[in-house]
């Protein structure tokens, strides 16, 4: 059971974040049936698609130098840019949201700004804790999110609805539902990090998606569609409508703990996207350094008031889309290899990658400020290129005697 909860904590690091809950809440306002069907379809498309992504460390039998050469291509830069961009900008927004939540739900005398820094410090500290302690904390964190949301969903299901759920609004369209794809961003890295825990990964992912679909349903039972669609905190509105003040308190805890899990997860995943290119010895030291630098950058952005600007949302959305595009391209690449092996299932991977790639493009061009988003995207990819170049130089000094982590005898 404990190991299942550990896997749950990895699987759900992004799914319980405020960002994901906003997407789900907004989606629920577009129509309960179509919203849930779309959410489930996107979860299945992503889940099936990522099974085509090749785990380069397990299957190629390359040493780290060969791996390094293989990985440094445009697709990798897109992935690194997306992951680090998300870790930096989404974390900044998420932390500020957690600060406001604590201030407004629990204790108004405590500055939201200070609480955001406390969560950042906690997420950073977790990185340096012994694995056993870290796992316990993450298990408690995610278990509360899961259980808290389950309680709200159950209460919402047994209570009399206050809003008719068989609606469709003028906003209901596939274009407006496409952002639900972003709920499943990062699933590729989750699967890679979990490695052999495939069965538990499948189970925890399935349970979490069902829970989120349930949350979308009960949100629509209690909050008017137009309010859900345009709300920036649909989760809190729904929690209050469903459970009153206790519901609000539960959701407050979910947001705070979910924020901690999300920021920790984003740091871990984004740093691992870089360090896997450098082998274990150099990768570990580089990884810690990257995480520390990211925390400093996030703190600096919060201190500079970036969260109080409208441009932050564009940065977050663009970073997520880069990551989503990377996932789509990785699935496409894996499917091509499957075709070469004349695998019948390759067609499924091609369909999955096509939907993800077209979806990410459609979301990108449906933004208000496409030019600014494009400039940001190019800048992030260029930044990833510079980062890897810089780290290659540094790593050359750090680990000249590195032992390759991958044996050539492995298949």
């Amino acid at each position, binding site marked *: 059971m404990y190991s299942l909860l550990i896997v749950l904590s990895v699987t759900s690091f992004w799914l319980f974040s405020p960002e994901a809950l906003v997407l789900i809440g907004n989606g629920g306002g577009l129509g309960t049936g179509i919203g849930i069907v779309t959410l489930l379809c996107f979860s299945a498309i992503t889940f099936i698609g990522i099974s085509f992504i090749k785990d380069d460390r397990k299957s190629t039998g390359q040493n780290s130098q060969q791996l390094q050469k293989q990985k440094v291509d445009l697709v990798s830069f897109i992935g690194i840019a997306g992951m680090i961009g998300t870790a930096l900008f989404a974390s900044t927004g998420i932390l500020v949201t957690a600060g406001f939540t604590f201030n407004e739900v629990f204790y108004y005398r405590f500055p939201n700004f200070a609480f955001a820094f406390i969560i950042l410090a906690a997420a950073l500290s977790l990185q340096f804790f012994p694995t056993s302690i870290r796992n316990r904390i993450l298990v408690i964190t995610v278990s509360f999110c899961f259980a808290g949301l389950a309680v709200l969903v159950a209460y919402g299901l047994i209570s009399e609805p206050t809003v008719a759920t068989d609606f469709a609004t003028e906003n209901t369209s596939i274009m407006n539902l496409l952002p639900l794809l972003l709920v499943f961003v990062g699933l590729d890295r989750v699967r890679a990090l979990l490695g052999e825990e495939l069965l538990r990964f499948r189970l925890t992912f399935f349970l979490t998606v069902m829970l989120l679909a349930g949350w979308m349903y009960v949100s629509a039972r209690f909050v008017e569609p137009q309010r859900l669609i345009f709300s920036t905190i649909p989760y809190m509105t729904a929690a209050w409508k469903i459970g009153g003040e206790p519901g609000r308190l539960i959701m407050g805890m979910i947001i705070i703990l979910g924020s901690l899990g999300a920021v920790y997860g984003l740091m871990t995943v984004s740093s691992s996207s870089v360090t896997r290119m450098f082998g274990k010895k150099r990768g570990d030291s580089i990884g810690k350094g990257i995480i520390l630098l990211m925390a400093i950058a996030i703190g600096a952005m919060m201190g500079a008031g970036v*969260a109080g600007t409208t441009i*932050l949302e564009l940065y977050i959305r663009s970073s997520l889309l880069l990551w989503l595009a990377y996932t789509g391209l990785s699935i496409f690449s894996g499917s091509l290899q499957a075709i070469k092996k004349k695998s019948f299932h390759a067609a499924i991977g091609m369909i999955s990658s096509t939907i993800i790639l077209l979806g990410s493009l459609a979301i990108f061009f449906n933004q208000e400020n496409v030019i600014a988003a494009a400039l940001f995207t190019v800048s992030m990819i260029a930044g990833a290129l510079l980062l890897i170049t810089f780290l290659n130089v540094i790593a050359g000094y750090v680990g000249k005697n590195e032992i390759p982590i991958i044996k050539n005898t492995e298949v």
Partner: protein
Amino acid sequence: MRVLVATLFLMLFCSVSSSFAVNVDTMNKDELKSMLGSENVVVLDVRAGRDWSSSEFKIKGAIREEPGDVSAWAGKYEKEKTIVLYCA
């Protein structure tokens, strides 16, 4: 509401550049509280980004305006009235 009243005040102009550029009067939460509801007071919520989108509350009767687009809405309000802006 207590949350707002407690943290309210203000920073009526948190834009440093604006504060340096012109001499703007400020008021504390008690002053504003006593004026709320008056026809001669217009309260504008000029919070931006997550400061606005993550918050559940706003001052009763406050009108939301985009802080980066002052010229678009500045002319809408009578200059004879007391216009109170808050951004946090």
